[in-house]
């Protein structure tokens, strides 16, 4: 991946050189499809379309991009666009299929398995997030053109606010636990996390399930209002 520098690709794209398009595709197409499918669990057809949209956005906005710190700036910019596109797809899925699915919990041993209350709490957060998306969507549909722009902005912040509890609960963990949960949720390898946290890979693997359990307990304790909410039809 590092054979061609990002600066070369950016220069080629900015000067209209078509070679830049081929290099961009070779560098990112398979890689981002992988992320969309394996990390965010999107169907492969959706993932392919999403990655096309990401790379099209990169090409269309290339003139607004500038290096500030180093060659890696371009990669961070592409991943930011990718993140925003995945978020849009996830929000769309929340409106259509729903995000509460049959989660796999094979990694948890019996003594670490989630209790009914803990499942309710996590499901309730996802449900509130879905409802906020639906509300925001209907506010935009009903609004008039001038007002809808404002409604969309307000809707986005309301939707995001439904996840504040997650950020808040993470803050209550120890730093290394927080790093472990955040990084593993995005499939960052244990080797990398070990370097960031000064813990061994073996320790991190053992602790991961326990930290997850601890995180859910914190959510259940600090957000008791989320318990006992049966799913409402929306």
């Amino acid at each position, binding site marked *: 991946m590092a054979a061609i520098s990002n600066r070369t690709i950016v220069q080629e794209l900015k000067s209209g050189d078509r070679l830049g398009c081929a290099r961009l595709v070779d560098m990112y197409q398979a890689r981002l499809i992988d992320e969309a499918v394996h990390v965010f669990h999107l169907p492969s057809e959706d993932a392919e379309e999403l990655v096309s949209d990401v790379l099209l956005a990169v090409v269309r906005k290339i003139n607004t991009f500038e290096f500030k710190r180093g060659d890696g700036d371009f990669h961070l910019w592409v991943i930011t666009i990718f993140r925003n596109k995945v978020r849009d797809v996830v929000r769309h899925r929340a409106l259509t299929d729903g995000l509460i699915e049959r989660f796999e919990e094979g990694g948890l041993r019996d003594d670490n398995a989630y209790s009914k209350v803990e499942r309710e709490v996590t499901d309730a957060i996802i449900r509130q997030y879905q409802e906020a998306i639906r509300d925001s969507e209907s506010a935009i549909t009903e609004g008039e053109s001038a007002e809808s722009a404002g409604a969309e902005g307000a809707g986005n912040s309301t939707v995001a606010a439904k996840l504040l509890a997650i950020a808040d609960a993470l803050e209550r963990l120890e730093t290394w636990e927080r790093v472990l949960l955040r990084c593993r949720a995005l499939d960052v390898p244990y080797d990398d996390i070990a370097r960031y946290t000064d813990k061994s890979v073996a320790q991190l693997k053992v602790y991961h399930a326990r930290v997850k359990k601890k*995180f859910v307990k914190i959510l259940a304790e600090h957000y008791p209002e989320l318990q006992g909410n049966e799913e409402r039809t929306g």
Partner: protein
Amino acid sequence: MKNERVDKLIQLAWLEGWISTHGAYEKAIVKRNTKTLVLPNSRAALIERLESALAETKADTPLTVGALLRGLRTEHSLRSQEIFSRIGVTQNIYRMMEQDTVSPLKISLEVWKRLIALLNLSVDELAEMIRRTHQLVFFRPMLKGVLARYSSRKKKGMKTSILEKAYSEMYAKANLELPEAEQRRLNYLITTLKDETKGSTTS
């Protein structure tokens, strides 16, 4: 990777911008071995889409400073005063800038910096427009000379105004070699502009 409930919650918070991995995830993507096999026709189709998008982007990009200012004024229905007072030039200079009849070398660095800030332009983008504008302004007298010869021969069928527009566009698009001294002055302006705006503009 398993589709697990806590991972899902944390992913949602990351997607909505509540949390960050401080670059750890972005670095991990670079290092991963890809598992997806992209079919050659899928790769080729995407490259084709990107190439047409790139061509459209290029066609939409103003070539010269004048084209940029004219586009800005018409697109946002602004009066010229609203622009020249903000970038700090007189009305006459502004008009010459819009018509690409003044060399960018005669415009102060401060004006270019204000223009970058006002339009949220990238320095590279503006530098390219400055280069093309200077080229156009520099070579235009030669073009005028040629046109004057045709005019003096009273070739009425020759629409000089249309010709001038066409030649102007051609000069703006061409990559012509400027005389050494001119090129040095232009390089100096662009380098100084880039140095002075480093870190102060947004992408």
